[in-house]
C-alpha cells in the first residue's frame, strides 16, 4: 500500500512560528525514518520517579527530514511495535519547543497508517543553513539528554550523507562529535571530544627503575564541568610537550580513559586520560565561554584549620622574596633549588610559601605582586607553611575579583600593617614539647619511631634511672657559636673549625642516660643543655668536682650523680636509625628537656578528665 506523504510538511514544521496552530494542529503525513530511544535526563517525570524514556524520531515528508521527539504519552506505540522505522503516520497534533535557540518538534498525537519502504530521497532540512559550530547545536537540540544522543545523531542519519561531513569548519577533515563535558568521560564511551583549558602542565619527568626508564609529563584539563588529568609517556610526551601550553584551550579526543591513579593526583575525577599516539589535540581559537581557573581561596588566618598535608588555594600579596637557595633532598640525594615567598592577605596573617625547581629559578616578579596559588600543600613548619607540589599552579596578578580586592586593600593599608605569622602553639615544630602527643616509652619502641617511614619526633615524660658516668663531657671550643671538639696540643687546646688555640676548653656535656616510665625503659643521649639541667651545674664545674674527688674520695662526685637520678622531666626527643658495622640501632636523642611544672601538668590532667575523652 502506498502512502502519500505530505510534502512540505517538514519545511512548515521547522519554519512556522511557534504559535501557528494552522501548522501544528493540521495533519501531516510523514514517514518515520528512525526511532531511537534516549534516556530522558531531564526530570520530565514526577519527582522520585526515574525519568521516562523518550524517543527521538526522524520524520520525512519525502523531500526533507527533520528531527523530533515523541511525546511520552505516545511511547506505548513504539513499545507495541506500531511505530517503528519506515512507519507512515499522520501527525495530528504537534508543538514546537525552542531549546537553546533551536527548534524541536514534539509530536503530541498521531495516527498510524502503515509501513512501507522509504519514500523519496529526503535530505536534512536546513542542512544548508546549519551553522558551522555544528557540534554545539546538535547537542542543543536535545535538552538535557547529555552527550549520548550526539553520537546517536551522527550514526542515526545514515541516509543524510550529504549533510554531515560538510559541517566541520576549518582545515580538519574529521567530523567532530559534539563536545562532551569532562564529567561525562568514562571508559565506556570512546567517541568523545572535550574542549578544555590546560590549567597546569608539569615538567618532563624522567625515571629509571628495574623495569626500565622513560619520561612523562602530566597536564590538567579543565572545563565548566570539571577537571581531569592527562599523562603522556615517552615519544608521545616528546610530541605533545611543546604542543600543549598552560592557559590555552584545546579540543582533545581519542585519548584513552583510564581509572585514575589517585596516588599521583589530587584531583577528584575517578578517571584520567592517557594521551597516546592516536590522540588528537587541536588548539581551539574559539574564545567564547572558555572555562577560567576556578579557585577556592582560604584566607591565611584559616590555614590553621587545614590539616597538615592538606591542599588548598590561596591568594596573597608577595611581601618578601628570599633569594634562590638549594637543599639536598634526603630521598634522592639531588640538589633542589628553592625560594621562599612571604605572602600576606587581608586577614592579617602572613605565611611562607616555598617554590621549587624551575619555578624557583624562574621567579622574577616585581615587588608586591599578587599571586593566586592553586593546589598548594599545607605543612606545619613554624606553625603553618605552604609548599608547591608538581600539581600546583600559580597565576601572577590574576584577572579575578579577589585580586582587585587585595590590591585595593594592600595599597591603602596593607603595606603598613604588621602581620601575624602562625605561631607554634597548636602545631608545634619538632622541638616543642607537645602534651597532646605524649608517648610512653613502650609506645615509642613498639611503634618503631625512627625507622624509615616512621615519625621521628616525639614527646615523653620519663624519670632518669642511671647516668653513665664514664663519658660525661668533652672539651669543646670556647669560641662563639662553635661547639667543636678541641684537641690538646701541649698546653693549649686547638679548634680545627675556628683555627684557633685556647688555653682552656669549655667542657660540654654529652651524656648517655637510662630513663624509664611506667611502660618501659630506654637509653637516651643528651647534650649540654640536658646536662646543665640534670646536674644543676656546668660541665666545667662538674669536672672540677670529679677531679677534686679523685684525690680524696669519690664522695662528692657520687653525691651529685645521685641527686640527679630519680628526677622526672618532660622530654622532646628525636629518634634516628644508625648503622655501624652491620648493626642497626635506633638511638633516641633529647632535643629539649623541660622540668615538670606540677601545676601545669595537673591542670592538663584535669582538663583531660573534664574532656569528652573521659565520658
Amino acid at each position, binding site marked *: 500500500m502506498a502512502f502519500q506523504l505530505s510534502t512540505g510538511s517538514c519545511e512548515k514544521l521547522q519554519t512556522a512560528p511557534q504559535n501557528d496552530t494552522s501548522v501544528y494542529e493540521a495533519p501531516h503525513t510523514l514517514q518515520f525514518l528512525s526511532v531511537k530511544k534516549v534516556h530522558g535526563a531531564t526530570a520530565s517525570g514526577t519527582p522520585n520517579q526515574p525519568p521516562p524514556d523518550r524517543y527521538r524520531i526522524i520524520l520525512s515528508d519525502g523531500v526533507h527530514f527533520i528531527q523530533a521527539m515523541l511525546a511520552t504519552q505516545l511511547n506505548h506505540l513504539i513499545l507495541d511495535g506500531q511505530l517503528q522505522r519506515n512507519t507512515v503516520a499522520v501527525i495530528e497534533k504537534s508543538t514546537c519547543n525552542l531549546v537553546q535557540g533551536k527548534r524541536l518538534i514534539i509530536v503530541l498525537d498521531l495516527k498510524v497508517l502503515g509501513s512501507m519502504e522509504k519514500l523519496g530521497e529526503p535530505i536534512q532540512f536546513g542542512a544548508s543553513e546549519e551553522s558551522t559550530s555544528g557540534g554545539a547545536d546538535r547537542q542543543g537540540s536535545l535538552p538535557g539528554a547529555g552527550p549520548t544522543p550526539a553520537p546517536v545523531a551522527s550514526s542515526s542519519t545514515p541516509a543524510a550523507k550529504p549533510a554531515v561531513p560538510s559541517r566541520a569548519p576549518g582545515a580538519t577533515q574529521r567530523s567532530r562529535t559534539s563536545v562532551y563535558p569532562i564529567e561525562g568521560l568514562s571508559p565506556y564511551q570512546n567517541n568523545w571530544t572535550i574542549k578544555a583549558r590546560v590549567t597546569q602542565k608539569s615538567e618532563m619527568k624522567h625515571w629509571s627503575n628495574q623495569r626500565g626508564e622513560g619520561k612523562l609529563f602530566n597536564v590538567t584539563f579543565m572545563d565548566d564541568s570539571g577537571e581531569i588529568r592527562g599523562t603522556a609517556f615517552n615519544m608521545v610526551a616528546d610530541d605533545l610537550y611543546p604542543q600543549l601550553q598552560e592557559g590555552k584551550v584545546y579540543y582533545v579526543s581519542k585519548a584513552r580513559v583510564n581509572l585514575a591513579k589517585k596516588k599521583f593526583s589530587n584531583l577528584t575525577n575517578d578517571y584520567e586520560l592517557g594521551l597516546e599516539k592516536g590522540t588528537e589535540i587541536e588548539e581551539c581559537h574559539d574564545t567564547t565561554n572558555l572555562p577560567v581557573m576556578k579557585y577556592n581561596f582560604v584566607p591565611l588566618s584559616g590555614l590553621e584549620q587545614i590539616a597538615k598535608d592538606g591542599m588548598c588555594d590561596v591568594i596573597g600579596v608577595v611581601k618578601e622574596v628570599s633569594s634562590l637557595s638549594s637543599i639536598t633532598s634526603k630521598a634522592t640525594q639531588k640538589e633542589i633549588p628553592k625560594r621562599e615567598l612571604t605572602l600576606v592577605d587581608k586577614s592579617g596573617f602572613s605565611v611562607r610559601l616555598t617554590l621549587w625547581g624551575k619555578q624557583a629559578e624562574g621567579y622574577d616578579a616585581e615587588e608586591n605582586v599578587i599571586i593566586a596559588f592553586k593546589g598548594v600543600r599545607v605543612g606545619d613548619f613554624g606553625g603553618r607553611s605552604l609548599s608547591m607540589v608538581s600539581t600546583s599552579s600559580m597565576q601572577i596578578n590574576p584577572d579575578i575579583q579577589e585580586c582587585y580586592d587585595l590590591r585595593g586593600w594592600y595599597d591603602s593599608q596593607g603595606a603598613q600593617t604588621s602581620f601575624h605569622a602562625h605561631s607554634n602553639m597548636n602545631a608545634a615544630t619538632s622541638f616543642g614539647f607537645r602534651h597532646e602527643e605524649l608517648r610512653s616509652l613502650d609506645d615509642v619502641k613498639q611503634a618503631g619511631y625512627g625507622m624509615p617511614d616512621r615519625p621521628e619526633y616525639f614527646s615523653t615524660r620519663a624519670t632518669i634511672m642511671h647516668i653513665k658516668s664514664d663519658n660525661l663531657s668533652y672539651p669543646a671550643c670556647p669560641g662563639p657559636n662553635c661547639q667543636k671538639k678541641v684537641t690538646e696540643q701541649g698546653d693549649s687546646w686547638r679548634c680545627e673549625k675556628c683555627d684557633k688555640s685556647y688555653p682552656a676548653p669549655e667542657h660540654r656535656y654529652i651524656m648517655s642516660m637510662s630513663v624509664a616510665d611506667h611502660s618501659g625503659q630506654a637509653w637516651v643521649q643528651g647534650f649540654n643543655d640536658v646536662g646543665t639541667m640534670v646536674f644543676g651545674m656546668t660541665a666545667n664545674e662538674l669536672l672540677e668536682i670529679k677531679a677534686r674527688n679523685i684525690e680524696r674520695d669519690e664522695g662528692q662526685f657520687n653525691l651529685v650523680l645521685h641527686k640527679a637520678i630519680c628526677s622526672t622531666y618532660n622530654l622532646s626527643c628525636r629518634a634516628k636509625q644508625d648503622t655501624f658495622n652491620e648493626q642497626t640501632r635506633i638511638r633516641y636523642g633529647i632535643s629539649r628537656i623541660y622540668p615538670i611544672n606540677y*601545676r601545669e601538668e*595537673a*591542670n592538663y590532667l*584535669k582538663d583531660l*578528665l*573534664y574532656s569528652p575523652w*573521659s565520658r
Partner: protein
Amino acid sequence: MSALEREISPRVNAEMLPKWIGKTVRLTCKLLNFDSESERSFRVEASDGGQVVIQAINTGEPFRPDDIYLEVIGKVIDATTISMLGCIGMGNELDMKLVNDTVILIHDPRFFGKMFSY
C-alpha cells in the same frame, strides 16, 4: 575491707561538708585568721571559697602552722566546723582552682573509688 573503708579521708571542699558529717575528711585550705580568744580554733577558706572553722587539738601549746596553705585532716562536726586530727603544710603557694577542680573530680561517680583512692 570494711574496716579500712571506715578509715577513709577523702579530700573535700566546703560545699561537701554537710554530706560528710561525722566522717573524717581532708580539707585543703588557706589559713585566714586565728580565733584569738580560745587559741584553739581558726578560720580557713576551702578550695571553693567557703569558710570553715577548724578546732585545733588541745595540747596547751598554741597552734601556729608555718604555711599559709594547709591540709587539715579532721572529723566533720557540722557544715562549717571540722575538728582537727592532723595537719599538713602545703607551702605558701597553691593553685586553689586546680585543687577545687580536682576535688570535684574525685567525687565524680565515674572516678570515686576507681581512680582516686580515698
